[in-house]
């Protein structure tokens, strides 16, 4: 019997890639996809794995590896698929040599994302087949199967997962790694040079491929009609299938594994055998609209929402008409996410707030500069957009209009796509002030390296690309590096640079407080006798500080890392920095 291990969905996808004989993996971190690469690197004896600067580059690395003749994979969150969509749409035409799989992790419920888009819609537009597993075991199996389909049908294949699947754990039976021979590369411009004349021919192939897949899908084991009581028949895939099994264990289910293209004949047959056909799919009505277009009567989005995650209770209420005995949730204060104690971003936002500056924001922990008590970030759209949206404002309203605006972006996001926006600002004679909050890591996703950290995913030490010199190389005269905890210098620098009639960059440096390998020798300690109860130290919103009933401030020793921001803000010497050993 093979070994069974409890695995995260993402860990199982990584295991599937390993067992499938993958040789190259590339990704940019993004919740809920990050752990795929973090687990693939555990097989680095057999798989080359990298963090690429963004998803477009990651997809292209995988495409190149595939064309050369090995099995290759790239993984990303749903919005990363947008960044990678340029290569994806055309890789769909070019097809593959070695198997090529793109793992897309959608985020219904927006646990850590800026939108709730459905990758199945992208896949339909790109004409790429999609497999959707429903638990960890399938996450592994379907990943392996994706490579088989990719080579058999000469197509990239998307494995679609969702947050709930990626971040759930379940049993997985481990198998050996397959011995996959490298395929020879043969020059074939008609297939790999997608200029108009060649692409025209490939488009014909793409159409025939998708037609064949729709037919063959009817006999694929991943698509499975489970007949039980036929008064209700569900069509479901992914985690939604599990909710059906939980709430309606006696109902018939057509469980889809290949979710694009749909196995039409199989669905028609299933529909003819059940009295009531219910489509249970999170997010967009992708199956429902197609099934209705074939003239099959079904129910779907009139029963279930387009937003957020589904549940078994949803079925109990909407389909079984059960009256659920659920007590009302207590009315309690919200607990929104906040910047950590000792976070190096806090000082920047506190200064921007104090100076009444507006900030065009970006994607990362520092997006939390938008919420109370900092309230500084006013726009967040996508990776890299801070710099370009600020530039757009300037071009719309003039350079004086942005004299009280800055762009705020993290180091990893700057390397992702921010650098393009900065090039544009320089080239098109903008005058914006750009704050690059350099905490030496990709923070929000749990500390991944990038081109400016000097470390690779595989743990190699490499020359770090200098953000300072990168900015200088664009011809930006005013590039300043300031330590995030040198509050006075940072404030002075921001004031100077915002007033300037030229592009300027302030690189605010200090490692993420949660980054491993640091020592924090100090703790901040309140001295109640000196406290004037003014509340100045509380303004930046450090969670280690609380106001006591008598108005003085208490500092939670276990949370404080001694960053000293509160000490600098207290004019009365009522917060001291002390040796942690003595506290």
């Amino acid at each position, binding site marked *: 019997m093979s070994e069974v291990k409890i695995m995260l969905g993402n860990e199982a996808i990584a295991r599937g890639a390993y067992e499938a004989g993958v040789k190259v993996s590339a990704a940019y971190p993004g919740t809920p996809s990050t752990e795929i690469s973090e687990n693939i690197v555990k097989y680095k004896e057999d798989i080359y794995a990298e963090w690429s600067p963004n998803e477009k580059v990651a997809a292209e690395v995988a495409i190149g590896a595939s064309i050369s003749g090995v099995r290759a994979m790239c993984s990303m969150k749903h919005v990363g698929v947008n960044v990678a969509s340029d290569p994806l749409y055309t890789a769909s035409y070019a097809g593959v040599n070695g198997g090529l799989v793109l793992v897309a992790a959608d985020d219904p419920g927006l646990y850590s994302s800026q939108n709730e888009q459905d990758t199945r819609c992208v896949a339909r537009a790109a004409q790429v087949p999609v497999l959707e597993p429903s638990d960890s075991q399938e996450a592994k199996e379907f990943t392996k199967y994706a490579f088989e389909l990719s080579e058999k049908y000469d197509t990239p294949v998307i494995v679609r997962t969702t947050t709930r699947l990626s971040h*759930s754990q*379940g049993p997985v039976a481990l198998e050996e790694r397959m011995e996959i021979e490298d395929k020879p590369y043969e020059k074939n411009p008609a297939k790999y040079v997608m200029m108009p004349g060649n692409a025209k021919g490939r488009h014909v192939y793409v159409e025939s491929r998708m037609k064949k897949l729709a037919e063959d899908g009817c006999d694929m084991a991943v698509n499975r009609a489970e007949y039980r009581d036929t008064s209700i028949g569900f069509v479901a895939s992914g985690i939604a299938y599990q909710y059906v099994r939980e709430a309606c264990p006696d109902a018939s289910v057509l469980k889809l594994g290949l979710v694009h293209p749909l196995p039409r004949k199989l669905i028609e047959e299933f529909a003819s055998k059940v009295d009531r056909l219910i489509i249970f799919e999170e997010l967009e009505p992708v199956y429902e609209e197609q099934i209705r277009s074939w003239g099959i009567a079904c129910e779907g989005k009139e029963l279930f929402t387009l937003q957020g995650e589904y549940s078994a209770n949803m079925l109990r209420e909407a389909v079984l008409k059960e009256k659920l005995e659920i007590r009302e949730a207590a009315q309690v204060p919200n607990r929104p996410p906040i910047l950590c104690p000792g976070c190096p971003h806090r000082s920047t936002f506190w200064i921007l707030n104090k100076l009444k500056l507006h900030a065009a924001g970006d994607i990362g922990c520092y997006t939390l500069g938008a919420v109370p008590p900092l309230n500084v970030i006013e726009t967040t759209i996508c990776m890299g957009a801070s710099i370009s949206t600020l530039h757009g404002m300037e071009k719309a309203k003039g350079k004086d209009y942005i004299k009280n605006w800055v762009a705020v972006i993290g180091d990893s996001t700057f390397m992702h796509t921010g650098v393009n926006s900065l090039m544009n600002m320089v080239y098109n004679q903008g005058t914006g002030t750009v704050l690059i909050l350099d905490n030496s890591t990709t923070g929000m*996703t749990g500390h991944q390296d990038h081109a400016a950290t000097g470390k690779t995913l595989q743990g190699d030490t490499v020359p770090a690309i200098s953000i300072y010199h990168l900015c200088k190389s664009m011809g930006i005269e005013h590039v300043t590096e300031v330590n995030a905890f040198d509050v006075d210098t940072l404030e002075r620098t921001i004031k100077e640079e915002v007033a300037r009639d030229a592009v300027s960059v302030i690189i605010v440096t200090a490692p993420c407080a949660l980054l491993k390998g640091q020592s924090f020798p100090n703790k901040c300690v309140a001295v109640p006798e000196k406290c004037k109860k003014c509340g100045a130290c509380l303004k930046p919103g450090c*969670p280690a500080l609380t106001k006591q009933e008598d108005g003085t401030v208490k500092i939670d020793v276990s949370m404080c890392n001694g960053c000293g921001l509160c000490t600098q803000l207290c004019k009365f010497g009522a917060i001291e920095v002390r040796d942690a050993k003595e506290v």
Partner: protein
Amino acid sequence: MTKNIMIVGVGGQGTLLTSRILGGIMVEGGYQVKLSEVHGMAQRGGSVVTFVRYGEDVAEPIVEEGQADILIAFERLEALRYAHFLKPDGVIVANDQRIDPMPVVMGAAQYPENILEDLAKEHRIYQVDAQKKALELGNSRVFNIIVLGLAAKHMNFTKEQWLDVIAKTVPPKTVEINQKAFLIGYEG
């Protein structure tokens, strides 16, 4: 019969490690297990919830409202926030700690008084000041394992099984302190 456990707390309090130890013991016990975790933004000081389900045949990986057998809460307000997930005869195992959420810090909301006392009127509740006991042990971070030890009293596994799974799950350097922490909750 599937059993449903929830672990709730504040991002950074170690819900993930605790749920992984729970998952590990269920596997040792021969059950089918599914866990569901929260990663990403909520881990930055937000309200976090982790689900552990075990039994003979587990379909969905989440615990839904009205279905939890045990609610392990690392913080009082979070115990209250998720109490409606409990079955009528469900048990609460709570760490008697208060962490003010930002709306309370800023004076925009009040931290409710007497949470555990009020919850005790409707549920069986077991509590521990794990923070204090962890500090006495010399490592404030292992408070979550003390709470787990208290919860473990209400599950059918032996002390040896728990200590063994802890040893397999936590980083090698921290095995001893975590086992000690567990025993404080389990035997205390």
